[in-house]
Each structure stands twice: as C-alpha cells, then as structure tokens.
C-alpha cells in the first residue's frame, strides 16, 4: 500500500463532505489506484482461516497482527453519507455504520469487511489491509483492486450482486466445493 493511495482515499472523503449529493449518486467504488496481483498476498476470510494455516507461533502472531491492523484501517475505508449509496456499490446488507467499526466513526457508512489481506511487498516487507467485495464481485484491498485473488476460508460469492438487482448467485457449485474434487469429469 502506498501512501499515495491513502491520500486519494482521504481526498475522496473530503470531496464527499463538500459535494454530498454528487457523491451519493456515484455508483462506483473509489477508483482503485493500483492493482495488486493475487500472488502478492493472501486474503483470509477471517482470523480463524488465517490461524488454521499458521504453521508456527510466528505465523499465529502475524495473523493476529494482520487482522488487528486491517480492523484499524477500516478508518480509511471509503465513506458514504447514506446507507443506500453505499449499498449501491457493495450491495444491500453489505454496509455498516462507520461508528460500529471505527471509534468516534460518526454517522457515515462503510462497506462490510469481507476479509483481510496479508500482503507481501517483497524484501520481507508486509502490509495488511481490510478487504471489500463490491456487488460485481471485484475484490479490493484497501483502495487497490486485487486481481485473481485467492481466498482462504471461502470467498464471498459476489454477495451484493445478488440482492441489489434481484439476482442471487452461488446456488450451484456447493457439492464440488464440499468435496474438493480434482475434476468433476470422468
């Protein structure tokens, strides 16, 4: 995560404060500043999924630290003044009052944290981000879009797309994922 993209997010927040109406009509998530490839990090659905993979105490510590920092960074999550505008982007039921995740968060709305990313910038440097999924199924780590993300602990199947437009998804495929088949063919 570069500091540049954080600044963009904060700027977007300021813009919203002054141009509320325009921002509320904005149906797109904050424009991602960079693309993170799926190989640059791992996305965990929850702390348990991360802990389940932890091979030693160091890894356990990393999981806890990553999770906590992701929660802390919810302060930087894109903010929407109205729940409806947030849900236009992330889908009904997928936005929460900012005050429920950020201390003194105020009355705005932020997307639900679907997971967290344990990213690797190379050279042993790591970064941690909360992960959002928009109604189209695109995955964001902070303000960056993640290409080909590999989720541990189950990827939410574009939950939002489901309800916002009377389309439900994820109704096929559960048998294969339950069996972890090598191929369904014969």
């Amino acid at each position, binding site marked *: 995560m570069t500091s540049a993209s954080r600044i963009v997010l904060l700027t977007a927040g300021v813009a919203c404060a002054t141009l509320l109406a325009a921002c509320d009509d904005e149906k797109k998530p904050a424009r991602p500043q960079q693309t993170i490839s799926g190989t640059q990090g791992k996305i965990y659905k929850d702390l348990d999924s991360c802990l389940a993979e932890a091979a030693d105490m160091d890894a356990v510590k990393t999981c806890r630290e990553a999770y906590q920092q992701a929660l802390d960074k919810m302060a930087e999550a894109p903010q929407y003044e109205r729940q409806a505008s947030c849900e236009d982007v992330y889908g009904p039921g997928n936005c929460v009052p900012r005050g429920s995740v950020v201390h003194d968060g105020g009355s705005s709305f932020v997307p639900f944290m679907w997971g967290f990313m344990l990213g690797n910038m190379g050279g042993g440097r790591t970064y941690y981000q909360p992960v959002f999924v928009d109604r*189209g*199924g695109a995955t964001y780590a902070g303000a960056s879009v993640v290409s080909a993300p590999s989720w541990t602990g189950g990827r939410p*199947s*574009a939950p939002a*797309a*489901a309800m916002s*437009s*009377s*389309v*439900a*998804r*994820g*109704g*096929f*495929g*559960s*048998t*294969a*994922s339950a*069996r972890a*088949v*090598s*191929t*369904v*063919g*014969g």
Partner: protein
Amino acid sequence: MQRFQCEPREDWQKSVEAIGFDFHTFDAAPYWREEAYWRFSAAEIDGLEAAANEIHKMCMAAVAAVIEDRRLPLFGITGLAAELVQESWARQDPHLYGRVDLAYDGTGPAKLLEYNADTPTSLFEAAIVQWYWKQERFPQADQFNSLEESLIDRFRRLMQGIPSADPRRHLHLSCVVPNLEDEGNLKYLEACAIDAGFRTTRIDIADIGWDRQRNKFVDLDEQIIARMFKLYPWEWMVREEFGANISQAGTQFLEPAWKMILSNKALLAQLWEMYPYHDALLPAAFDRAAIAAQSPRGVVRKALLGREGANITIYNADGTVAEAKDGDYGAEGYVWQARAPLARAGSGTAVLGVWLIGDQAAGMGIREADGLITTDDCHFVPHIFA
C-alpha cells in the same frame, strides 16, 4: 493391437504447451505419456467404432425404456431429478457428446465398462494433443480421430433453424473454477462452438445467477443464459440451491438432463436385461448372485454415481478382493458387473474411451492405470492405426 515403447519428443512439454495443453502434468507426474503408444489394425478400429455405435444405440433405447417403464427409482432418480429427466426427454433436448469406456485387448469383442455421458473429460487430449503427436511421429499412419470436425458439425446442427438474434445462439460454458483440466476441456469445446458460429461466454459454476424477477439464469452481466454447456454433474445440480429453478428457467442444457440415465451405472444392469448376452455387454445386475454364474473371472461392484474410479471394488473369482478404491459415493446404491480382461499396459492396464459426438463414434483416447481401476491418477497414451 499392440503397445510399443518409443522415444518421447525432445521437449515434449513445450510441444504440447504450444498447442494449449497446460494440464499435461499433475503433482509432478506426467499425465500425458508419449514414451509408449498403441498401434491398431484398421479392422480393429472398424470393430471398435461399430461397437461404440451399437452400444450408443442400445443406450438410447434404454433411456426410452427406463422412462416409459417408470424405472427411474432403480437408478436412484426421484423427485426433481426424475421430473427433469422426463421433461428433457419429452422435449427431445439435443445432446452433444459422451465417451464409452471399453474393455478390449484385441482378442474378443469390446465390452462396455461404463458410459461417461454427462461430464466426460480428456476430450482435448484425444482430439488435439494426440493428433499433433501423430503428425510429428507417424505422419503416414492414421488415427481414430475426427473429433474436431464432428464437434463443430454438431454445434452447427444445434444452431440450425435458430434466428440470428435469438439468445440460443449464445452458448454459456460453465465448470468449477479454478481447475486446469476441466477448464482445458471447456475452452476446447468453446473454441469448437465459436468455429460453428456461436457467441460464447465462460462462467464459473458458482457465478451463475438466478434472476428472480425474470425467472431466468443469468451470467455476471445479467444476460440470460439460454443455452449452457455445463461440465458439472446433473445429480449435484439438482440437489443444490438453484436446482429447483431449473425447470422454470427454460435454459437448454448440454448435456441434457436425460443423460442422468446414461451416466448412472444402473444403466449396465438395464442394458443386460434388455440385451442379454449381447457381444458388447458384460453381465450386470443389481444382485450379485444374478450374474455369478456368468462371471468366471470374478465381479466388480460399482457405485451408481461413482466418478474417477471411486467406490469400485474388483473381486476375484474366489471372492477375494483384487483391488478396491474408496470414495464419497455409494449411498445411492451399487451395481454388479462381470469382470472383463483389460488390455495389459506394462505392469498396468488400459481402457479405451471411444467418443460419441451426437450419435456417431468419432474418435478414441486411451487411458492407462497402474492398477486395475482407472482413476484420476491415470495417464493418457496416444494411438495410431495402419
């Protein structure tokens, strides 16, 4: 038929990758093997082709009989699944392809082991990879392989009479993602469909949407899925959340739901009952005792819905277990089949998979196993005939 050793092409991995074969090796062990090949006579190939066509014809008669005689419960097909089978058969929903697996060692008639009629794979290997191998290694020889022409022709027929703006000219293709092997098969079929003039969209089976206002299945762009090729078992689809929507959705599926009868191993007992002592069939029944007298080499117990060799037990004539593979299947019941001699491939065995495109045999792929049961650890080995 005879199996010969040969020198693999130098850099064979690069050769097969150049034609888009990216699942030639699994867990560091090559799945595609070209250090050996099978050579057949033209007469043997003619016999295999005729056997597969005859088997398919009998199978289609069996589907009609099972539905007409209300025998679906014997196949474990009840409720929603039974409705979909009956509806699709009554509508005469077209089918695309299937693969009959044959026991054949060149000495007697080929015998049907099972029909992979719903979700067959190894198509790309049979159609393309072994063809390129032959062209390089044995350009003068022939190969039982008109798969690509036949597939394109079949897709063309599926478009006949459909107006150009009709959504049924748009084919969605779906499988479990990520899965290199299944996606490879899917992409190959997509290429053939495109050649035939279809518009296509690939979609992860888990991404398929249900639009409850329009009562239609939709893709990620919320376009209606009018026709879908699915590399995903029917018996799973009907049990999953969207299963109950299939009937009202009006999507035309490839393979159609009536293929649930052919991909179910109860078919083997049905065929033996309809065509007892047919040359291309092995004795088979739901009751082990019923075929004991006709099974001098022992019997094989197969789960009705088993896949990739799972839940198969092979018994010797004295009742001891020759080989067994466990798995997640079998709750739906078992069928018993007389044991057939398989072609010997080194220390293992080979099974011949003859492809049916539409209603015509159109090619063959050979898979070898280290043991007696062909599983997902098997290897694909090319063939020629001359």
